């Protein structure tokens, strides 16, 4: 049996439902030998800001039980270098590219989008609104529905391209945040970003990370991510979702689809296995085959419950 693997996230058509996540796949070309980007549903760039950012001091990562905490601090080459060096190659390969957009202020989001608007080959923008560096009186964009709606709206006005908002699991009210993003004009929501967390070196009596806290990712967070995808899907069934958090296998991907995601992203798994996103495509296809599923989209929102 051959399985139809194509899906779409709103207007964005994907050859399969598995994307490489932001921040774990470089600028889309670093793992070409393991995961040709054009063979994935899409690749999401590392979070891009208008100017290059050096990121946080070291150490930036620490392993935890079935997870890791990172505080990279959004080190990136800046949107200009991305558009110049990476995007043309990705475009030439026919990869579907989502640009993960990050700004310390609202204007910076708009700057990144404006720069990308001059380029072909950007399939969607994904707004990263759970950055630790903040505006508006110490509140992260992703935590304040009103602010987020404004941000989404201003970005929406800046482009005709599909706009995704990546939700923070640390937001006080996930569904309100999701609703605000959609109200502001987001075409789809990606969830979840990392969960705020901390590791302590008991001997040194210090946080392990130079930044103190960081974001937890990996299999440890999968049950939380699944719950959040399902919660948002139930509240906003019409909004396309991209599920992420601890996806390690094709079966994990299927779980996220069942919970209501139209596609998934693979993050930390890529560190364990540089071919993980591609492997997961194959595993998901195989899962569908054994389950007699002819079209992977049958899974989307297919959870039988309440």
């Amino acid at each position: 049996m051959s399985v139809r693997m194509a899906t779409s996230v709103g207007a964005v058509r994907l050859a399969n439902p598995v994307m490489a996540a932001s921040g774990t796949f470089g600028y889309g070309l670093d793992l070409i030998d393991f995961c040709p980007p054009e063979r994935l549903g899409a690749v999401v760039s590392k979070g891009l800001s208008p100017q290059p950012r050096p990121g946080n001091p070291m150490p930036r990562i620490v392993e935890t039980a079935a997870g890791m905490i990172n505080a990279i601090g959004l080190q990136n080459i800046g949107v200009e270098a991305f558009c110049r060096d990476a995007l043309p190659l990705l475009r030439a390969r026919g990869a579907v590219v989502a640009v993960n957009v990050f700004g310390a202020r609202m204007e910076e989001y708009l700057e990144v989008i404006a720069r990308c608007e001059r380029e072909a080959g950007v399939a969607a923008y994904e707004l990263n609104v759970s950055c630790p560096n903040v505006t508006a009186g110490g509140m992260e964009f992703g935590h304040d529905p009103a602010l987020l709606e404004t941000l989404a709206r201003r970005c929406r006005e800046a482009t005709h391209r599909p706009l995704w908002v990546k939700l923070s699991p640390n937001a006080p009210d996930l569904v309100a945040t999701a609703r605000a993003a959609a109200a502001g004009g987001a075409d789809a929501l990606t969830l979840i970003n990392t969960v705020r967390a901390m590791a302590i070196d008991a001997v040194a009596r210090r946080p392990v990370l130079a930044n103190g806290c960081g974001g937890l990712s990996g299999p440890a967070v999968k049950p939380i991510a699944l719950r959040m995808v399902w919660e948002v899907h139930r509240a906003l069934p019409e909004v396309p979702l991209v599920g992420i958090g601890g996806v390690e296998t094709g079966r994990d991907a299927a779980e996220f689809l069942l919970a209501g995601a139209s596609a998934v992203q693979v993050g930390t798994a890529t560190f364990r296995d540089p071919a993980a996103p591609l492997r997961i495509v194959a595993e998901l296809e195989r899962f569908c085959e054994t389950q007699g599923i002819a079209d992977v989209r049958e899974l989307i929102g297919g959870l039988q419950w309440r």
Partner: protein
Amino acid sequence: MIARRDLAVRVAARTDLSPTCFRIALTTPEPLAAVPGQFGMVACGEGFDPLLRRAFSIAGVARREGVTIVELMVKQIGRGSALLRRAPLGAELRLLAPLGNGFTLAPGEEGPLALVAGGIGLPPLLFAAELLAAQGTAFDLYLGAATAAELLEVEHCRSAAAAAGGELVCTTDDGSAGEAGFVTAALERRLAGGRRYARALACGPNPMLRALARLARERGLDAELSLEEPMGCGVGVCLGCVVELADGQFVPSCKEGPVFPASRLAARWSA
């Protein structure tokens, strides 16, 4: 560039080198080539504990009768290295290699070079020593450890140095073998005594590398340091392993390193 691969390897042999360190040989039918200083990311077990792979320098690689043998030297620190110590012979692991850049080893170079190894920093330098001996470059090998029992592969080191007409200088922090004190002090004494080197290659704990970078700056000695930053991916995509350079850039040490000319590193490395 030698193409990196994610290889299924088998544990073929293991020998204790010291109370804390052991040598482990991994085999695969696939061909693999690496230069000293390059490393591999090893999935030390199955499942999610530990979650991430561990970085280990390649201590040697050989191909015999259709089988590639990759040698590692491992210090038992935590769960990953403990799993490697316990893995039954024949167990299958995964090895993503070769990664990183490696030391500069110009064929035909005369030398002499100073190879400086601190503790479990030895593997890339022992690998280098063997290649240098084979290509006829002279070198001295400085081998430091906390205590006599932790001096690794002394005979192996001695014969490699001898083959290149060089000296093996052992030091221990506690004076229980060789010269007492830090390995960098032993190098400093010889430099002060007039010994000259075309270049120093070093790997070891950060304080040792700092001392060496300082010495290199003061003496105008070219030095290449192999750094050990905590690594998430080993392939440049997590940015967890960055090193600050003199020009203020933060570069992933797994990709632009792990070997850096001391002069390229931010000033605090040699401060």
